[in-house]
């Protein structure tokens, strides 16, 4: 626990449970007749399923922490971040934060039919900036994203990587106390990953808190001082000894142990 330089917590997650409902998940034959029978028999819709995604998670995060969250697909990593950001309401328990957390995710869909330029403006306005602030920062956001001339094109014409870069630039335009990144850097090229790694470090330097969800374990080890391993919506293991947790995770899921002397620089293509 030596790494945390300040003991003031910024995020407290207290016995959190998140349940969300999924519509249209299989079920009956989907004809009008079967639907009528169901209504007559007063049955619940079989096509509505409840997914208990987070099942009792508790932890405390302090100033200046960068927390990596690892776990297999479907273990609840993204759901946990959405709950911390206040975007998914908890079924039970509570998340306390020192300020509004900004979540940057793969699904952070902005408005696809609109140009990149309009997305930058609307995204900044939605985060609560004034039109003047947006005007002042517009150029630096576009420069940081590196999408160049594509800024005048509708976002649906962007490649996955370009859209990610623009979203990351928009979200990091405002300095947030708590920044959460959900696999958002996975599709960027080497240059952009380096830039965003710098940005994360800068945020940690300002005593901000960073959450990072990634399947790229090298990136977690390079950027984070603490790691939480989620499994089936619960914490399997967590701690400040990042390599130890990562090794345990790899062993349990059948991955090769990491060779650390070779890949300390955050490059995962080894």
């Amino acid at each position, binding site marked *: 626990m030596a790494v945390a330089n300040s003991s003031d917590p910024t995020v407290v997650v207290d016995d959190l449970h998140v349940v969300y409902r999924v519509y249209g998940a299989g079920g009956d034959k989907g004809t009008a007749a079967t639907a009528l029978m169901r209504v007559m028999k007063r049955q619940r819709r079989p096509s509505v399923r409840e997914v208990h995604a987070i099942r009792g998670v508790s932890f405390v995060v302090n100033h200046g922490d960068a927390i990596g969250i690892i776990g297999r697909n479907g273990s609840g990593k993204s759901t946990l971040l*959405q709950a911390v950001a206040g975007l998914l309401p908890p079924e039970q328990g509570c998340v306390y934060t020192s300020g509004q957390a900004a979540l940057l995710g793969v699904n952070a869909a902005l*408005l696809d039919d609109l140009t990149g330029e309009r997305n930058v403006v609307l995204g900044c306005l939605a985060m609560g900036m004034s039109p003047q602030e947006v005007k002042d920062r517009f150029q630096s956001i576009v420069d940081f994203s590196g999408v160049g001339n594509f800024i005048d094109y509708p976002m649906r014409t962007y490649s996955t990587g370009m859209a990610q870069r623009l979203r990351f630039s928009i979200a990091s335009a405002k300095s947030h106390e708590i920044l959460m990144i959900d696999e958002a850097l996975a599709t960027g090229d080497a240059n952009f990953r380096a830039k965003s790694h710098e940005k994360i470090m800068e945020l940690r330097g300002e005593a901000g808190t960073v959450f990072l969800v990634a399947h790229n374990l090298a990136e977690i080890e390079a950027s984070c001082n603490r790691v939480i391993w989620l499994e089936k919506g619960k914490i399997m293991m967590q701690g400040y000894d990042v390599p130890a947790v990562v090794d345990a995770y790899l062993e349990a899921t059948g991955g090769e142990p990491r060779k650390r002397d070779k890949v300390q620089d955050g490059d995962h293509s080894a």
Partner: protein
Amino acid sequence: MRERARDQGGPGTLTDDLTPPEISRDDLPDEPLAELAARYRLRPSAARPGVFAYAGQLWARRYFIVGFATARNVAMYTEARLGQLWQVLTPLLNAAVYYLIFGIILDTSRGVPKFLDFLITGIFVFNFTQRAFITTSRVIPDSLPLIRALPFPRGCLPIGYVLIELEQLAMSMVVLTVIVLSTGEPLTWYWLLALPALLLQAMFNIGMGLFLARLGAGADDFSQLMPFLVRTWMYCSGVMYSIATVSFDRKHPSVGYLLQVNPAAVFIDLVRNAILATQRDGWPGSKPYNAALCKLYDVKGAHLENSAYCHGTVTINDLWLLGAGWAIVAIVVGYVFFWQAETKYGRG
């Protein structure tokens, strides 16, 4: 080889036996977490602001609301070859279709003077409420990605959708002005009264939009039903006939009264009375009661202007009071109703 490690995360591996330990409290402080959070002044992330603070938050995002509405309006026609021209063509075609059916084929005018102007004003004004109701009842499901990506007061979305329709209405009003002037209607100061009338209607639509957005957030059945409800409402609101004339038949005076005080009819009549001189001058009760002159008035077409000398069920003053009343009730009820579920909209 590490590629393999990442592949282990595939959905097919979920059934592997990895049982997380029961919650260990070793890593947690001894005191209850809620107290710890309170000690450091941390706030619940999914907390609902107070009812007045929420209004402040919405006001702080006013530029976002306007920007959102404008951007959606621009994007609406980008795929069409005629582009923004559709903003004008849509109301024109609407007017043409209704005039063909109700003005020429069915002839529901029943002696209403200048039926074309009467009908088009009614269609454009009702269309504002109709579109606002249908779109806001779908706003939460439609905006789920945006809601799950960015934190902002969700009330921005239904308000933004009503603003989109308000911008469309502004275009319709330009078309209306051209049509009405070309049929020989005089341009008078009374026209300015259309602005407060439409403002009250916009307030009413925002209030109802907030209300319907919450209803539509739960089950999709509601937004499927909405177009039918709104269409029924249109036929009840004197868009293509005059309620005042119909209620003169005096078979069902109470029904006529109810139709006249319904919000859609109120806003339509306010705008018609502002723009159309024949409506204003012929409005029952707009001149002192005169039994002899009133008797000459015949619904079927004789001495139409004499209807002004008859007793009106709803006077022009009543219309303004009703319009303001509906707007205030809708905005208060809709706002509180929407605000109550503020933290639940992301759930899907």
